[in-house]
């Protein structure tokens, strides 16, 4: 290696040299390759399925049908979170079978799986499948799907409704609206998106007959979520599954649990007695990775004469797609309600949401999972109301911020926010964005025929509370002189190893470059949450900090021995061991131990960490060319309170990525189906992605307010970039267009859409 080169993250060296190890890189001798036969129709009965020619094709070893997998114990795709209806009714659930049973309900739904000597052979053989469909009418539009004219997807779900949820108290809200001086109403879409991790979903499974364990290599967000949900989906016991991923090429919420291919491959590995591999093509991924967002948010706000917000209410529509898979209920109920008042002190809040079925790919979590969406809806609504009733949007926000003296603040629908210093973050963001002199820049742009706009968002989000009762971390020293740390949460680019090593270096005085983090240990017995809801750093990180505290106790007798003092005389402070005026380091103590003493040192740490409230103020400045409708993002400013920051470089990187994913939703990305439920955006040629240069200038800072809600004091950063950027970018676009009579438009703000709106406004 170059003499002076130290990688900036532990994860980097293998990834920049092509030695990363992703799921599709596994290549076992004698491995068979799978191809999934999928539905080409959005809604159809399978009248007849003949797979004999596929089975007879040279090189094919097995073709799995729905009956085959059911006979082997296969269950359904998991829906781990349910919600009660507003009257306490049980939620209607329509679970997705591993392979379609008699009816298909979205284009891309798996019907059968072919296992053959090569991927191409399996694909060739699949062409020979004879499937006779009776095509049914499809229901694609989430608003029309509840009308009597819409076809019903599931026998147990009248009006295609899964649950009609409510939060808050309607009465005081209605009373507030009755006495309000001003009211505004704004319906916004958070359009359906693709998550698009760059590594396509893949599964490689191999069964050890003697041990009775199937190893499943697959990108995941945490071993426990994947293992336990996969056990339910495949019928295997959790103890007989070992989940493994070395490198994971992005997750963004899509990889918390198994898909059909996971269950099918576990059963195939057991049935066939050899390794089996399925690597999704991007076309299949567009059809079958859970989609994201797909929300319609209908907000109303009531103000008194002085501009105090008296109440907010929402009526939301949540498109679950064809089945309840993974997190759509969680998004459409908990996550849309928990921070529905944003950063504002509002006496009355009420929301209701209907989670509905359509003949489209099931929807689950995508970066933020309802948090960016509700922040977007609130911040658009507040901005819209300010302009509609003649308030300055900054002043209106300022007037309504939760007062510093009010924390911990309990919202009208029951969330308790520990701290959120919006005023301070707003002041800082206004200063660095030169907000006060914007009108000069607007005039300059206009002199060149361009429309300039500035938009801001003051926002907060509730990070993931987690589903496991606690997070645990296990640390042990290895004979090679490294500290191995095991946990549940699995990284997918966030740099868990680097951040966790920083925590350990500070807490234990042990060099960060001698720490190795791995998700999962051979027995995989630890408890904990996966990556999700921005919680790994503070959840797993707090457990790791607790492990360090335990480890110090374990090391203490050795420290005393090394320093030649009684154990009562030694103590650890600021990264070093002290006794009678002399000092030594943890590394010196450990390195002096014999191997058997070294490897006997271990410690378990655990921590219970609930949701936190990351918050921020973002400002975007844009310029629109009215001749083309194209929007150019001039500069983006982000000031975030993420609590205690562990790694400033990784935090900046997370904000960059989040803001640019927000840019993607604001300006180009959208999943489009035709009226028959055919996916029109099925490749990167049709689904527009952010590219280099779309956000050319981004300034981001942190304003650290430690939270007392976890041991580490951190709040999480994974989703704040998306949450802050949707409203800031949209408000900037509306600011540019408002002088021309355009007050509302839905994302994505594509050039043709803006151009057409300007033409219409002119006419």
């Amino acid at each position, binding site marked *: 290696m170059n003499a002076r080169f130290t990688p900036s993250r532990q994860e980097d060296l293998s990834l920049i040299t092509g030695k990363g190890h992703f799921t599709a890189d596994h290549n076992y001798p004698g491995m068979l390759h799978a191809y999934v036969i999928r539905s080409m129709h959005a809604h159809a009965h399978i009248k007849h399925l003949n797979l004999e020619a596929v089975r007879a094709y040279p090189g094919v070893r097995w073709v799995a049908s729905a009956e085959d997998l059911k006979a082997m114990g296969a269950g359904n795709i998991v829906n781990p979170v349910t919600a009660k209806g507003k009257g306490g009714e049980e939620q209607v659930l329509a679970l997705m079978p591993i392979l379609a049973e008699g009816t298909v309900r979205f284009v891309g739904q798996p019907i059968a799986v072919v296992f053959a000597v090569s991927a191409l052979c399996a694909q060739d053989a699949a062409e020979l499948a004879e499937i006779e469909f009776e095509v049914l009418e499809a229901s694609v539009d989430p608003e029309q799907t509840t009308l009597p004219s819409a076809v019903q997807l599931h026998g147990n779900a009248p009006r295609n409704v899964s649950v009609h949820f409510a939060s808050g108290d309607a009465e005081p809200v209605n009373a507030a609206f009755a006495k309000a001086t001003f009211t505004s109403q704004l319906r916004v879409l958070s359009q359906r998106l693709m998550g698009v991790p760059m590594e396509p979903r893949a599964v490689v499974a191999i069964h050890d007959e003697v041990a009775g364990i199937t190893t499943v290599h697959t990108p995941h967000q945490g071993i426990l979520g994947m293992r336990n949900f996969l056990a339910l989906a495949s019928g295997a016991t959790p103890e007989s599954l070992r989940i493994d991923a070395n490198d994971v090429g992005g997750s963004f919420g899509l990889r918390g649990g198994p898909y059909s291919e996971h269950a099918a491959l576990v059963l195939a590995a057991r049935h066939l007695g050899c390794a089996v591999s399925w690597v999704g093509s991007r076309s299949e991924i567009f059809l079958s990775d859970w989609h994201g967002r797909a929300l319609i948010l209908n907000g109303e706000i009531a103000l008194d004469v002085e501009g105090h917000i008296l109440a907010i209410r929402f009526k939301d529509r949540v498109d679950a797609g064809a089945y309840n898979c993974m997190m759509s209920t969680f998004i459409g109920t908990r996550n849309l309600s928990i921070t529905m008042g944003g950063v504002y002190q509002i006496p009355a809040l009420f929301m209701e949401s209907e989670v509905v079925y359509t003949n489209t790919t099931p929807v689950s979590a995508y970066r933020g999972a309802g948090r960016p969406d509700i922040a977007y809806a609130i911040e658009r609504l507040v901005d819209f109301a300010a302009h509609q009733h003649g308030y300055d949007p900054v002043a209106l926000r300022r007037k309504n911020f939760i007062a510093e003296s009010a924390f911990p603040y309990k919202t009208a629908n029951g969330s308790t926010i520990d701290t959120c210093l919006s005023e301070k973050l707003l002041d800082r963001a206004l200063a660095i964005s030169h907000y006060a002199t914007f009108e000069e820049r607007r005039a300059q742009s206009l002199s060149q025929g361009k429309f300039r706009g500035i938009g801001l968002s003051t926002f907060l989000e509730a990070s993931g509370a987690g589903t496991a009762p606690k997070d645990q971390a296990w640390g042990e020293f290895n004979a090679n002189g490294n500290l191995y740390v095991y946990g549940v949460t699995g990284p997918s*680019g966030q*740099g868990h190893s680097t951040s966790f090593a920083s925590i350990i270096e500070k807490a234990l005085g042990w060099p960060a470059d001698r720490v190795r983090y791995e998700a999962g240990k051979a027995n995989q017995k630890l408890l904990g949450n996966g990556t999700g809801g921005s919680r790994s750093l503070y959840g797993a990180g707090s457990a790791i900090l607790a492990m360090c505290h335990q480890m110090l106790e374990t090391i203490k007798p050795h420290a005393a021995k090394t320093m030649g003092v009684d154990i009562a005389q030694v103590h650890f402070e600021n990264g070093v061991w002290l006794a009678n005026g002399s000092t030594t380091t943890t590394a010196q103590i450990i390195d002096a131990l014999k191997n058997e003493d070294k490897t006997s040192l271990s410690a378990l740490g655990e921590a219970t960490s609930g949701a936190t409230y990351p918050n921020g103020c973002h400002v975007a400045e844009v310029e629109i060319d009215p001749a083309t409708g194209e929007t150019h993002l001039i500069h983006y400013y982000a000031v975030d309170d993420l609590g205690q920051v562990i790694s400033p470089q990784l935090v900046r990187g997370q904000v960059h990525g989040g803001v640019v994913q927000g840019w993607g939703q604001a300006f180009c990305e959208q999943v489009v189906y035709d009226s028959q439920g055919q996916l029109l955006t099925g490749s990167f040629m049709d689904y527009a992605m952010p590219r280099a240069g779309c956000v050319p200038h981004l300034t981001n800072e942190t304003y650290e307010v430690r939270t007392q809600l976890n041991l580490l004091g951190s709040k999480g950063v994974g989703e704040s970039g998306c949450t802050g950027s949707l409203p800031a970018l949209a408000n900037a676009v509306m600011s540019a267009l408002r002088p021309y009579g355009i007050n509302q438009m839905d994302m994505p703000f594509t050039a043709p859409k803006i151009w057409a709106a300007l033409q219409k406004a002119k006419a």
Partner: protein
Amino acid sequence: MSQISLNINGTTQKLEVEDRALLADVLRDKLKLTGTHVGCDTSQCGCCTLLMNGDTVKSCTVLAVQANGAQITTIEGLASGANLHPIQVAFSNCHALQCGFCTPGMIMATAGLLANNPQPTDAQIHEGLAGNLCRCTGYINIVESVKQAASAMQEKQA
């Protein structure tokens, strides 16, 4: 099946490949050079980018038989022994990678860009990387790393 010969990262390899086999798949499956990644099936994502006879190509869109006789450089062949290439160093220095799946393609695309244009402007960098998708970094640090690598390579030459 066809017999082909490829010079890969300085070593000549003789191979028997299916006529329809793609270069990316042959590198990954037959030669175990799994640093070249496949992220799409429409030649859009750029994860499979490598240098073929000095030009950047997307190896998912090249038949292995088309590469017969070519000089190929993959991510595994970019460093000189233990010395990393300045682009590799810059990507780590600037935190231009998170999950790292797009990284080999990004680095190889940058190698091609800087070979043709040693001091690109921001706009030229954006254009040079237009065929490579990244979902994690927002590209901001990638653009920085291209600039840092360009400076380092200039200094090295001077």
